[in-house]
């Protein structure tokens, strides 16, 4: 079962909390604090085959989250699910986010318990898909 989650978000407090709650559920969090760090990681030689989910903050200080999602969707040919995490939560923002290639949109403020359940169900779906294929 794939358990690695990539989080690209500039908020250090959020990274600490999510890292703790995700590891408590048996997931491993790889955190990148900026869009450029995220891009660097995505372009590295890392073995992405064990990546279960990518979570991207929309309002990154250096790169537009939409562009980053587009890049990930193209790189992984939509095999790795991408979820947006954002303070922008108008209907238009959500539609724009989903159209860019993300399969989910979590608007801030969010409930940590619900967040965990969403992550778990997406990863479960990803693993089931992997088995079928």
């Amino acid at each position, binding site marked *: 079962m794939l358990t690695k989650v990539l989080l690209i978000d500039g908020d250090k407090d959020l990274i*600490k*909390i999510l890292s703790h709650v995700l590891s408590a559920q048996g997931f491993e969090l790889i955190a990148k604090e900026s869009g450029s760090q995220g891009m660097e990681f995505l372009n590295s030689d890392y073995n992405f085959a064990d990546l279960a989910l990518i979570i991207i903050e929309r309002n990154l200080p250096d790169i537009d989250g939409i562009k980053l999602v587009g890049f990930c969707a193209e790189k992984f040919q939509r095999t790795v699910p991408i979820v947006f995490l954002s303070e922008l939560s108008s209907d238009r923002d959500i539609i724009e986010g989903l159209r860019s290639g993300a399969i989910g949109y979590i608007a801030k403020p969010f*409930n*940590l318990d*619900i967040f965990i359940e969403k992550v778990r169900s997406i990863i479960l779906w990803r693993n089931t898909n992997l088995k079928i294929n």
Partner: protein
Amino acid sequence: MNFESVAFFFLVFEIVSLACLFTALTYGSVYSSIHSSKSSATKTLISSQIVDSIINQKSFVLPFKFHTINNLSLLLDVLENFDCKFKGGKWEPLKREIYEKFLLKKARAFAKSRDWVKRNFAARCFSLCPSQDNLSLILLLMDDPVFLVRGVVSNTVVKMESKEGIFKILEKMSAEQGYSYWYYRDILLSSSNRVFEWIEEYSLDNSKTSFHLACLDVLEHPYFHLKKLNLEKEIRSSNPEIHLAALKILSHNPQVEAFKYISDDLEDNNLEIQTEAIKALEYCCYPDYLKKLENKLKDPSWTVRLNSAMTLLKNGEKGTKILSNQKLTANTNAYEVSQFALKYYWNFV
């Protein structure tokens, strides 16, 4: 005393003044940079304490001894920041614990302060953790002369769903203009269905025009459906503002006689009302409405023609067909606007 010594005296005075000014400015900038870096260090410390409390499920300990307004303001800043990220679950009880332990007492004391910064602090605290226990103070702050106080605290009554508070917001809306009017309107639009039901109830009283208009303006929200309000009186009102507001509600809340009213308004002398009636046909399929819209393509007013064309396009295949069938030889106006809408539709939506 000769001229040279007077000039020398003024020169020395000027040099000393400039030196003092330079020293004061340098001191000010150094002080503000030290203060801001100290504040940001304190905020980081508070944030890490909160993160620690969330992760390890333990009580929050304030990282400073003196509960001064500056320190508590920093704590409030951090709490507001966390509140923008998290809700429910582990965050809500921790937030309430910190609020009750460190902020509530000060907020109550500051609510009646003569200093508006302290009243703003109180308003922000009440907004962070809305509670019925503080309703009287919240209502008091809603009448504050400073918008930064009454605006912040108005958010609280919407979160709390206080009927009295909602009435007060509507009153404020009817009395204020410009930015504050739209601010109040926006916070009411983000409220629950229960609040909308109260606003509908308040809108039944039309004794005060500005208040009535404020209620109608909020009820225009497309996700709320009227239960008690019959718009007949409003739609026949001689006041064009009331008429227009009622028409906007009617387009989202079709009533028995709706088409009759909309149909009449299609011929209204007021261009705004006429345009709104055309837009209302986007939402509901009334008998012969496509034909009425097609006729409006020949109207002498460009606004009316353009809105009719846009409404036809939004009606899908049937509407698009009508636009495509317009012939240059039959009517230039209708042809021109149809081609314009067909070509530039996506620029408008």
